[in-house]
């Protein structure tokens, strides 16, 4: 295989000026969510590091993450794919197919063992040896295991790859699960979201590509710079929440005025993502801004989060209503029960004293 170029070498070959290159590197800092203090590191890496090979595979999913990825505006996904990473294999974006394509995958993995980045979209299927998700004649789980074993790092794109996704919803007939358990000792970055924000996807792969290391991760393995805040804490409707101005239904005056969607089951207070600050599609909007309550799509189990409805805050139990109604009823029943018990106790005490009096009376007369 020919020697792979670094970003700087590519600029030289294309006649791009040093000034433009440095400007590009500064832009990269912002995209990756690192401080400009580290510009020198970024420049060094961009000068010396050959563009990393990326292998991108797809399991149980809807390819929505790819749809999101190709809409990344900064960096433009086309720039990223064509000039900043070396995307060798992608189920969805590659033009090639069939045997030569699979052979290319094998060759790429062998030639770059220990150096390529594996991007995974979609859950693995674990039931019945994984036969419900096949790729190139093999089960996806075996492909994943093999590819992950030789990778430098694995990026789990989307809630499917990170936690199992929609196909893992009850009753989960295919036994779908997140990919973590299949990656052995290779480090994994979780980039959940259904789909993740385009700029978050490109930012994470750029970070791994440039620095050759994972970005700082939180307790759930998500990059802190993108998943370090609750949507609720960055939401532009938060002042309405604090002032208790809520939309009660999607067609009332509150909804029209853009008030907080908390009562419509908004999962912003439970969800960690950058929707509130990066927003989507060049900062155009995000679900809450367009008037829909957040469904917490970046959360593990958001499909079965215990409430049973995206538009409720507390689960409803048929005609009984929610926990507060049931709790009030049980509480009232307890008060009535206690009162009855008190009455019965008085009666019992009366009887006991009568018996005691009779006994002591007997003793005295004896």
């Amino acid at each position, binding site marked *: 295989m020919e020697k792979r170029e670094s970003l700087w070498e590519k600029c030289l070959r294309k006649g791009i000026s040093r000034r433009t290159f440095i400007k590009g590197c500064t832009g990269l800092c912002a995209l990756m969510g690192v401080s400009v203090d580290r510009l020198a590191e970024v420049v060094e890496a961009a000068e010396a590091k050959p563009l990393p090979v990326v292998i991108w595979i797809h399991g149980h999913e809807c390819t929505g993450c790819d749809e999101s990825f190709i809409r990344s505006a900064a960096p433009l996904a086309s720039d990223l794919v064509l000039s900043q990473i070396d995307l060798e294999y992608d189920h969805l974006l590659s033009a090639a197919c069939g045997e030569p394509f699979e052979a290319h995958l094998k060759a790429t993995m062998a030639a770059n063992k220990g150096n390529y980045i594996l991007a995974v979209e979609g859950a693995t299927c674990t039931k019945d040896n994984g036969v419900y998700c096949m790729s190139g004649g093999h089960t996806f789980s075996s492909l994943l295991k093999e590819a992950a074993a030789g990778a430098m790092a694995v990026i789990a794109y989307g809630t499917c790859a990170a936690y199992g996704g929609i196909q893992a919803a009850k009753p989960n007939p295919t036994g779908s699960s997140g990919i973590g358990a299949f990656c052995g000792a290779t480090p994994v970055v979780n980039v959940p979201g259904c789909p993740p924000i385009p700029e978050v996807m490109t930012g994470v792969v750029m970070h791994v590509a440039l620095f050759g290391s994972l970005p700082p991760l*939180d*307790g*759930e393995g998500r990059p*802190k710079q993108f*998943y*370090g805040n*609750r949507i609720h*804490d960055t939401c532009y409707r938060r*002042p*309405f*929440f*604090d*002032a*208790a*101005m*809520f939309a*009660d239904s999607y067609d009332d005056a509150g909804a029209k005025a853009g008030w907080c969607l*908390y*009562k419509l089951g908004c*999962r912003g207070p*439970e*969800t*960690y993502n950058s929707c509130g600050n990066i927003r989507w599609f060049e900062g155009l909007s995000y679900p809450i801004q367009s008037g829909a309550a957040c469904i*917490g799509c970046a*959360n*593990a*189990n*958001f499909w079965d*989060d*215990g*409430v049973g409805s995206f538009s409720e*805050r*507390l*689960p409803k139990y048929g005609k009984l209503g929610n*926990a*507060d109604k049931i*709790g009030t009823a*049980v*509480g009232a029943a*307890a*008060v009535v029960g*206690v009162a009855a*018990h*008190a009455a*019965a*106790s*008085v009666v*019992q*005490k009366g*009887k*006991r004293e009568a*018996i005691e009096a009779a006994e002591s009376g007997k003793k005295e007369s004896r």
Partner: protein
Amino acid sequence: MKEVKRKEFYVFSPFLRVFHWIMVVSIVVLFCTGVIIATPLQSVNLEPTYSVTYMDLVRDIHFVVAFIFAASFILRVYGFVINKGDRLFPHFWKGYFYRQTIEVALHYMFLKYEHSSFLRNPLARASYAMLYVLVAVEFITGFAMYFLANPDSIWGGISAWIIMVCGGEMMAHLIHHYVAWGIILFAIGHLYMVIRAEFMEGESEVSAMFSGYKFLIHNPKDATDSDLSGEKHLI
């Protein structure tokens, strides 16, 4: 009124008593603010300029009281260390615990006229242990949700783990909410039982939480669980 002789037992240290009343106030405040946070009342302000940020206030009260409640456990622990009467465990590991529990339960079901005398009967001991478990669940889930406002902190790291055990943050909210109702149901039963014991059985259940002393007619079966039992104060 016939004259009854009573013996005096020193049970609760002042630390435990103060803790108890902090707990009472905290639980009431935490429950009320918590219900409002889960199902907020619509603000009457329709004009944003003049609206009060009352949700913010309610949340702040909830958090501050939670911290006070948590801090008051220092008193509980100190009392626990220095005073025997603050250590009225349910003796799950002893056979007599179950026999006595059945005896007390039969009395409460009106199948027996009375039960033997206790400083604290085994049923009550078990229910208080249960309350501490419920409170612990509230603390764990509540602080986990609170500290995850900044997942970067050390506490955030620990909290992430708790949220995973709960099965997601929404689940943690639900557990927190349901267990809160459990505590309120406990409180109804507790309130009734102590009032009944105080005014019907003359077991000074309520007054002891003010004075620290219980005045009992019979020698309680668990008298050795208290430090100072005094024959000296005969009333």
